[in-house]
């Protein structure tokens, strides 16, 4: 993967997040405070605004630039979680110019570790990790089977969607939704759905 592909992914993410602002916020509003879409959208708006000025001298620098915007401008849990994810991915890639499939998986793993360090969430706590981790697992499995990026991402998107749906019966143990206790059962986790929507969008963009 090159910076070009990376740019496609981040741009697709940004466009998708902005297009889904209200949908994401509504999901967060069921048992959270309804600002998830708003927070992310404000951050990725800035990503798009600053797009041409972003340091894309290397994949690592590019991801660092994104993380700086998110950490600097996005509030709420999401600012930290998503900002940390980009920062960890950037750190993983360090000085690399070419990004291998192994690098992609390592970046994702490192991002998850960072999210868990900050947020202390376990799998099953009804957070975006419940969609992200299975999707990464699928991506890795596909890569190991020698599938191409296109079908690997497609398969990961399917798993992300299924896993997001699977958050419905979960009891929220992290984030604001956890205050609702038993009432959090029966609704989807906003972050997990966002992960699914983003994997789907990237998969679609990859094919085009």
């Amino acid at each position, binding site marked *: 993967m090159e910076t070009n592909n990376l740019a496609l992914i981040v741009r697709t993410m940004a466009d998708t997040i902005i297009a889904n602002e209200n949908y994401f*916020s509504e999901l967060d*509003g069921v*048992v*959270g*405070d*309804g*600002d998830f879409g*708003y*927070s992310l959208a*404000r951050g990725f708006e800035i990503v798009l605004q600053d797009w041409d000025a972003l340091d894309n001298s290397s994949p690592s620098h590019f991801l660092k630039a994104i993380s700086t915007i998110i*950490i*600097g*401008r*996005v*509030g*709420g*849990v*999401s*600012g*930290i*979680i998503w*900002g*940390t994810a980009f920062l960890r991915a950037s750190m993983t890639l360090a000085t690399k110019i070419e990004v291998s499939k192994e690098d992609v998986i390592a970046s994702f793993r490192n991002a998850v570790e960072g999210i868990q360090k*900050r*947020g*202390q969430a376990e799998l099953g706590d009804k957070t975006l990790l419940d969609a992200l981790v299975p999707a990464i697992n699928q991506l890795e499995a596909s890569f190991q089977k020698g599938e191409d990026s296109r079908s690997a991402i497609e398969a990961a998107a399917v798993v992300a969607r299924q896993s997001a749906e699977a958050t419905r019966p979960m009891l*929220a*143990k*992290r*984030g*604001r939704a*956890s*205050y*609702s*206790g038993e*009432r959090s059962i029966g609704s989807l986790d906003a972050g997990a759905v966002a992960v699914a929507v983003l994997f789907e969008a990237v998969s679609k963009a990859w094919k085009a």
Partner: protein
Amino acid sequence: MKKLMNDPKKFVSEMLKGVALANSKTLKYIPEYNLIMRADGPNDNKVSILQGSGSGHEPAHAMIVGYGMLDAVCQGDVFAAPPADYIYQTTKLIASKKGVLYLINNYTGDRMAFEMGREMAEADGIEVRAVIIDDDVAVKDSLYTVGRRGVAGNFFVIKAVGAAAERGASLEALEALGNRVVAATRTMGMALTGCTPPAKGKPIFTLAEDEMEIGIGIHGEPGRKRVKLASANQIVDELLASVVEDLPFKAGDEVALMINGMGATPISELYLLYGYAHEQVEKLGMTIKRNYVGNYCTSLDMQGFSLTLVKLDPELEDLLAAPAEIAIRTF
């Protein structure tokens, strides 16, 4: 729900501008970080006190910066913790030789942002300590692992720590004091209506004309239960019982009693609630040494209130009585 506003995206910055213009001699406003700080700070003879938090809880936190209270706030958007970078930048701006104390309401977003901001500030050699505020008894600590929320009780932490900081207390002493106030403070709230974030335009939850929600948070989080609307006295009985049994408060205790409005509750109703609550607290054998009736920590335009009890000792009582100067004033 209707609002007096312009562009919802500018709600927070236009509000902060208003606070700054109304207090141009005492407060400094740095729009880049939603930052309101004392114009006369930082002061190297005094620990600087910072609270971050999301917006929507006014007068907390932007309007309670000043002598004897906070040295600065950097607010996030409505109900969103501030970005970690705001905290880092603010910490640098208010850093004093005696250190910086964070007073953090116990929410995941706030804790994470302050933790990250603190790491960055400490890397610059600034000494930072933090107190986590979690006075809301509506959330059962044992069941959910994120712990209790910080709600209206944060006023008492800020007031006591703010007063002690003016008297020159050390960072360690203030951290210990903050934790002591947290340990002595319990709150529970209820709502007649949900609240409407400006950018959302619709209430986070809606209640029927004959319903109320008991145990709500200050971000429109639904509460312990949704039940039939009861009389003011019955509601006070229920909140008070939850608060009292939790610490527990006992006959002979000297306390501060706060009736805090959620944003759209008329002050007439708050005093009506106070009158009955006062009588009930005294019936339980406690002595009310200080009382507070008004909007301290709100949830935008929510109708409802919370009841807070603080167990006092002479030192704490003295700190609560010390003078302070903030944007919220009558004269």
